[in-house]
């Protein structure tokens, strides 16, 4: 296929930024890229011990129940948290070189997506451990949910990165906000465990639908189209808001960086 030079160059740029993001993280380590696989394995072991032995809700296969949502959540939370510093942490690049700034955001999200993909073997191992196996639904569900979640994260990253350039207070509270969202989303507990009167709060949280959809896929081997649909609609709305605000504030960005 013949690709025009401009597209080729943009793809090369994105590829190099992703590669840089991934390799730099492990640059001065002995195990290097192996950490990408080792991390989810170790996380898996910790969660397995924590949720299979110490804390048990009345849910069968509780460790798998938690991990089915926590790995996608990690992709979400890590990318969103890092996005706060993407613009403010690359000042010399942004002010002294011309290139599409949003590539920096995309590179972070893709690098984190790679980490998420490396956690899938851990999930699959656990699924087999509990005597089940991945079904054909995974082949449809994973790509669909990856796309939906990618859009959500990208929209939020646009908003957060540009907002933090103008209001640096944000980077000090982003961790708290993300952890609030973590506990407001049924990830380490089932939605049904929340007292009835508060459940509606969680149902208003769009991330709930997304994480439930992941769990239905990995834990129940089921495509929850209702949740996927709700998540997709929210994703598009967040992305549009993100693009609009980013574009508007971008013109003033050089004055505050």
């Amino acid at each position, binding site marked *: 296929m013949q690709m025009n*030079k401009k597209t*080729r*160059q943009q793809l*090369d*740029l994105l*590829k*190099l*930024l992703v590669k*840089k993001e991934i390799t*730099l993280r492990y*640059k*001065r380590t002995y195990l290097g890229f192996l950490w990408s696989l080792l991390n989810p394995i170790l996380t898996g072991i910790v969660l397995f011990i924590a949720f299979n032995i110490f804390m048990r809700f009345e849910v069968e296969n509780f460790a798998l129940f938690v991990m089915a949502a926590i790995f996608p959540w990690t992709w979400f939370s890590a990318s969103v948290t890092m996005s706060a510093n993407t613009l403010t942490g690359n000042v*010399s*690049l*942004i*002010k*002294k*070189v*011309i*290139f599409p700034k949003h590539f920096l955001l995309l590179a972070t999200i893709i690098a984190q997506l790679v980490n998420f993909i490396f956690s899938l073997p851990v999930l699959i191992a656990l699924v087999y451990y509990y005597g089940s196996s991945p079904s054909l639904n995974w082949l449809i569900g994973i790509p669909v949910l990856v796309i939906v979640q990618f859009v959500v994260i990208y929209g939020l990253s646009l908003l957060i990165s540009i907002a933090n350039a103008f209001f*640096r207070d944000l980077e000090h509270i982003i961790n708290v906000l993300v952890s609030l969202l973590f506990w407001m989303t049924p990830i380490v507990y089932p939605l049904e465990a929340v007292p009835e009167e508060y459940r509606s709060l969680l149902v208003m949280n769009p991330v709930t639908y997304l994480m439930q959809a992941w769990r239905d896929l990995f834990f129940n081997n089921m495509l929850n189209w209702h949740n996927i649909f709700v998540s997709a609609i929210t994703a598009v709305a967040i992305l549009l808001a993100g693009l609009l605000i980013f574009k508007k504030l971008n*013109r*003033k960005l*050089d*004055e*505050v960086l």
Partner: protein
Amino acid sequence: MIKAENLWKSYPMKQDRPGLKEFVINAPKFLKDNNNRFWALRGVSLLVSKGESLGVIGRNGAGKSTILSLLLGVAQPTKGSIEVSGKRTPLLELGAGFHPDLTGKENIVINGVLLGHTEKEIRAHMDDITAFSELGDFINMPIRTYSSGMMMRLAFSIAIHTSPEVLLIDEILAVGDESFQKKSGKALQDLIRGGVTTVYVSHSMEAIRKTCNRAIWLEQGEIRAEGESGLVAEEYLKAQRQV
């Protein structure tokens, strides 16, 4: 070709962020944000035709770097219009676009792609770039081990080997040693003779005289003098001696 008309550029001049209390009370005022702005450029017009080389001189804070940022397009003018035809190659800040933990070679690839080339094109020029930079074995070392002169050599080598059309240079060449200064000066003149348009900010009047055919002298965001580079440089030096 570069054509800029009546450029004005202001920056917000907050010493600091307002405290939360003031911010809440005066929110509409802060959001309007046209209070207390510093004017870095006040109505500067430029015309640099293809193959010309314009020197920009002036004291610190006169607006020299602001002009380069506007011409590059990383900042937007508050008022006025800019037209630049041709691929812009910046040499504005030492190490911009480099990552300290990557090797010289890895940085060549990233930098070249950032400058608008495909990875393949850059790899094809790799040998020329490394040879010109004279970095020897350091080219395979992380650039955090480089001196500032070495970093500049790398940046300059990349810039001139990526077929620049409009070169925007801010001072950084000054950190090179004598022999590289000569070499880079000559390479620059060859490029200019070959039709590359250049805007060159420097405090070295000798470099301005040698490289540029025309020059402008900026003072407090306005053009104080303009003309043949030797004459403007001389006038500037004379004024500085009187201070």
